[in-house]
C-alpha cells in the first residue's frame, strides 16, 4: 500500500526485466495505472512493448521485477488463466482471433471465465448492439471478416469477459486510416465506461490524444513519462513519432 491515504494502483510494474534467451527485451521497467485511467506506452518496433503486455498476462516469465494487482496480488505467482480471472483482458497485436470459429464462438470464449451462461449471453447481446455489423455476421467464420471487423471482434471478445483492466496491443495496426479513427474513439468510449486501459501503440499522434498518461519506451527502457499532453510536447517524442507529420 502507498502512503498518504491514496488507493493503491490497479496495476504496478516494478523493475521488470525480461529476456528471450540471452537477449534482453525489457530492462528495469516500472510503471503503474490506476482504476479508470487510460495510459499508453509508446515505442518503436522491438522496443519491448508487447513483451511488457505478455509478462503481465503471465505468458512470459521475467528475469526480475514485480507485478502487483491492487497493491497486494503478486501476478508473477499466477498462471495466465488465473490472472485473467482477476479481471484482466487482452486485445492482442494483430487481433489473433480464433479464425476457424464463428464470431459468436469467439465472443463466447471471451466470456469463458464467467460460468453463468445467461450473463455471457447478455454481454454478447450488448456487443451486437454496439457493433451491429458483428451481429449480422455472428455465424460467420471470424477469419473471413475484414481487418476492421476483426479488430471489433477482438475488442468485443475482451469486453465480454467483463474486465477491470484492458491491455491493448497496437489496436490500430494494419487498419485503414478511417477505421483507425473509429478504433481510438472506441478506446475512449470503453475507458469512459470505467474500464482502465493500458495501451501499447506506435501511432503516437492518435494515442496521445486519448490517453491520460504516456510512457516512452526505447530499447527496453522507459525514457519519458508524464501526462499525455506534456509528453506530446517533448522533443524526443516529436522527433521520433510526430515529426514529419506536424
Amino acid at each position: 500500500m502507498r502512503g498518504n491515504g491514496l488507493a493503491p494502483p490497479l496495476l504496478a510494474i516494478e523493475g521488470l526485466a525480461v529476456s528471450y534467451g540471452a537477449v534482453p527485451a525489457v530492462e528495469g521497467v516500472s510503471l503503474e495505472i490506476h482504476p479508470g485511467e487510460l495510459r499508453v506506452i509508446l515505442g518503436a518496433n522491438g522496443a519491448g512493448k508487447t513483451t511488457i503486455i505478455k509478462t503481465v498476462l503471465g505468458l512470459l516469465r521475467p528475469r526480475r521485477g514485480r507485478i502487483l494487482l491492487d497493491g497486494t496480488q503478486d501476478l508473477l505467482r499466477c498462471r495466465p488463466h488465473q490472472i485473467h480471472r482477476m479481471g484482466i483482458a487482452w486485445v492482442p497485436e494483430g487481433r489473433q482471433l480464433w479464425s476457424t470459429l464463428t464470431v459468436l464462438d469467439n465472443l463466447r470464449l471471451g466470456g469463458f471465465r464467467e460460468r453463468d451462461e445467461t450473463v455471457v449471453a447478455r454481454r454478447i447481446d450488448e456487443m451486437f448492439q454496439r457493433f451491429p455489423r458483428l451481429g449480422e455476421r455472428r455465424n460467420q467464420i471470424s477469419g473471413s471478416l475484414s481487418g476492421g471487423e476483426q479488430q471489433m471482434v477482438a475488442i468485443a471478445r475482451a469486453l465480454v469477459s467483463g474486465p477491470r483492466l484492458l491491455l491493448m496491443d497496437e489496436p490500430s495496426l494494419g487498419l485503414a486510416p478511417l477505421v483507425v479513427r473509429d478504433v481510438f474513439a472506441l478506446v475512449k468510449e470503453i475507458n469512459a465506461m470505467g474500464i482502465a486501459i493500458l495501451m501499447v501503440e506506435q501511432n503516437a499522434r492518435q494515442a496521445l490524444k486519448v490517453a491520460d498518461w504516456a510512457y516512452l519506451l526505447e530499447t527496453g527502457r522507459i525514457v519519458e513519462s508524464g501526462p499525455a499532453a506534456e509528453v506530446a510536447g517533448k522533443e524526443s517524442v516529436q522527433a521520433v513519432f510526430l515529426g514529419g507529420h506536424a
Partner: protein
Amino acid sequence: MDLFLQQIANGLIIGSTYAVVALGFALAFSVLRVIHFAHPDVFMVGMFAGLVTAETFPFGGLALAMLGGLIGAGVLGYAIERTVIEPLRGRDVLTTLIATLGVAIMLQNGMALIVGPDPVPYPPLLPRRFLDIGPVSVTVRQAANLGICLLLLAFVSIYVRGTRIGRATRAIAERPDVAAAFGVDVARVCQATIVVASAMAGIAAVSVGTLYGSASAFVGLLYGLKAFTCMLVAGNRYFEGVAAVAIFLGVLEALVTGYVSSSLRDAVAFLVLIGVLYFRPNGLFGSYQT
C-alpha cells in the same frame, strides 16, 4: 456393381475404425502439440482391458466390455499424460515424440510378456450372423463396429463444437496463449483431451477385437501408422476432416483389395496419401501454425 457396393461397405467399416484412432492422434497433436505415438497402444491396452472385463464378467456382454475398454484406456491415457507428456510440455516436438515412442515400445512388449507375442482369441461378444442389406452382406459384428465408430466420431464433433470445454479445446488448438489469457486452464483441458481420445480408442478397440475375434499386443502398429498418416493428410484444422480422410482410406483399401489385389492395398493407399501431401503439404483441409 454388387462387388463395388460390398467393398464400399467393407471400406466404411475399416475406415471408421482408422478414423477413431486418427482423431485421437489429431486431438493430441492439435491441443498438446505432441505426436502421441503411444496412442495406438492405448487402443491395444483398451482391447485387452475389454477382454479381461468380458472374461471376468461373462454375462456383462459387449456393453460392459466396452466400459472396461473405456476405463482401461482412459486411465492409461491419463497416466501417460501426467507422467510423460506434461513434464515435457514446451520442449521440442521431437522430444515428446521419442518419449511416447518409448512408452509405445514398453506397452507392446509389456503386453507381449503377459499374453505372449501371438494373437489371442477374443470373446464372442456378438454373434457372427450375416445381415443382408440390399446387395450388401455384412456380419452383425461389422455393422456394430461401423455404428459404434460413427457414434464416437459424432460424439467428438458435438464435444468440440457444442460444449464449453470443447470450444476451449479448439481455442487451444489454434492459439494456446490467447486461450490461456482468456481464462482457459490449458493443463486441465490437455488432460481432458487425452482422456477423451484414449477412452474413445478403448471403446473402439473392444469393438475391433470382437470384429476380428482376436487381440494382439502389436495390433496398435497397424492402426498407428495409418491413423498418423491420415492426420497429416487431412491437416489439423478440422477434426472432421481427419475422420473423413481416414474413412476414405478405408474405402480406397477395400476397393484396391476387391478390384486389384490385396497385396497392393497398402502400396496404393500410401501412394495416394503421399501424393496428396506433395500437392498440399499443409494437408487437405489446412493446418494451424505450431
